[in-house]
């Protein structure tokens, strides 16, 4: 599958898809999307990358082992729920802050952090499965 044509195009497709996945993640609170779909798109992106260029580049691209990414995502997800402990409100209460960067107000919130956790879990898990199956084949 690592034809010239595919190999040349795939990296750009991948980065475009990753970009799109983050877009879907970030605006999921207001329009269709969210961490799960975003994560799936990102994982699909890496799957295409892997089919075109092989597994090792994908592993290097991800830096960490995909399951570690998933573990971190789960950790972030759980942490986003506990932050409310320090505000004296029940578990998983949405907390919002509006910091201003370059004069533009950003809406940061624990639901967003949580959705990022979801994204990482899905990305890490699907990537791990795909890579695991892919590598297994060569053995």
């Amino acid at each position, binding site marked *: 599958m690592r034809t010239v044509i595919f190999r040349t195009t795939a990296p750009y497709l991948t980065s475009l898809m990753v970009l799109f996945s983050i877009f879907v993640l*970030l*605006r999921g*609170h*207001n329009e269709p999307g969210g961490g799960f779909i975003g994560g799936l798109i990102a994982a699909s992106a890496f799957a295409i990358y892997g089919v075109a260029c092989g597994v090792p580049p994908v592993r290097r691209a991800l830096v960490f*082992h995909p*399951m*570690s990414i*998933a*573990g*971190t*995502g*789960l*950790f972030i*997800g*759980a*942490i986003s*729920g*506990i932050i*409310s*402990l320090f505000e*004296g*409100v*029940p*578990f*998983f*209460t*949405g907390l*919002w802050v*509006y910091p201003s960067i370059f004069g533009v*107000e*950003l*809406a940061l919130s624990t639901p967003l952090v949580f959705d990022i956790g979801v994204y990482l879990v899905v990305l890490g898990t699907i990537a791990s499965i795909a890579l695991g199956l892919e590598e297994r084949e060569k053995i």
Partner: protein
Amino acid sequence: MAGKPTTPVDITGAMVTEAPALADWLVVAPVIICLLGGAFLLAQRKNTKIQGWTAVAILALLVASCVGLFVHVLNNGTIVMTMGRWLPPFGISFAVDVLSAVLALIGAVVAFFCAIYAVTDIETQERRYGFFPFLVLLMAGVSGAFLTGDIFNLYVWFEVLLIASFGLLILGNDKPQLDGAVKYAFLNLVATTLFLIATAYLYGLVGTLNMADIARRVAVLPDGAPINTIAALYLLAFAMKAAAFPVFFWLPASYHTPRIVVSAVFAGLLTKVGIYAFLRTLVLLMPEANAMLSDTLIWVAIATMIVGVLGALAQNDIRRIMGYLVISGIGAMLAGAALSTDLGLMGAIMYAVHSMIVMTALYMACGLMIRTAGTHDLRKLGAIYGRDPFLAAVFLILAFAAAGLPPFSGFWPKLTLVQASLAEGQGWLAFAILISGFLTTIAVGRVWAMSFWRGGPLGTPDGETVDEKTQPMVDPWDRRGLVIPLVGLTFMVIALGFLPQPFLNVAAGSAGGLLYQETYTDAVLGAQAAPGEVAPESAASDNSNTEGPMIDGTDTKAQPSGESE
């Protein structure tokens, strides 16, 4: 992204305004601890050296939080926290009564001892492929299932524990494991899917997912609403999860295949979650439908008890014997649940607690036996009495406890169940309970006589023992690591036998919590009427239900959700 709200919003109609007491966080602490711990172990998967003791530490923390929760519940009655601060029934409530607290506690203790056992029993490769994350996340599922007050959330926790159990089950990839896992996985998938289907219908009928809200709405359903059918579906789903007759197939097909400590965890936790869900859903939420089904359930219970123990008698593999004993015990719990009287529920709950401890310990003991004799086959086992008399004693205690003989933990639930069935005039049920105990005695007595007393494999001449030099060596340090958790659990088995009073009291409190629905619904939703429905009769009499079999301190105050002391 939505901008900063420009005008302040009045949240009183949507959110709980009082801050929860710090102690109320204990309600979610078990789940949080397990999720964070599991996530940490997952991220540190390749660091196999730290995995074991980190998991033990996490589970110790879990035990501590469950103890705290248990004490908190005993002192303050049902504790509720609704996630996200939303008013129940709109957010997901965790609602913990005595039943939830005690099962969560025992589950945590069992898992804790299993983790200690696993530190010795589980090797590097198993660690690398996630034994400890699986175990800890399994406990997230188990704790979540015990603590949540939301039916769909219960389904989610069921799935968490199920997928974690898949992971534990296949760890090793041996042929029998994969074979067993195929059956386990598909059949359990059917069971949880049935649970989800039933929940979908229930949602379609009552439009809500909060258990307390469900209870109130089910009580005022119009005629013709198919609540009994939905209840039957729940019954089937939980019977399958609990491995009741005639849908127990998955358990004997798989429980003997994984690493022994995994079997121990499963025996202690999985089926009991099914029983818990049954009690919570059918007994608490839809008592009338449950009463409709009770005759059927009694026969299911009888068949489960008898078929289970017959299965135990029919095996050569001691691990499979234990698996069938788990099933037989499920029958006993179902018997109590079917009666749904104070005594019956007490018996079921006590039996659940007892079975969690004793079956886990029995599997652990089997693990030691297998290490000592190098086989799990009843025909080849033998001569362990001489090599490890301490193990012999422990196994015997556990075996007799499993058979319901005094003075061990199995006696009190069995006694209570016999009392309950005879009090209801269910002679056949009492008979079946006693007969299953009798047959269990035979089954475990045979195992003990053959594996411990007999001088060696089947056919060893009288008076001779196998040459000990040809038997596998158990490293003394390994043995110590395996015996300590076993002793811990055996100690509990003995303690529950000798000190039954708290056991009985807690079971009474738990049973009361199931029978006195208003206590639960009022604690979660406050004493007001369900939206759009007639007010429940008991709205005014919050503190009046102490005549139930409740222990001091467990009579719950009507507690508006999220309100602190």
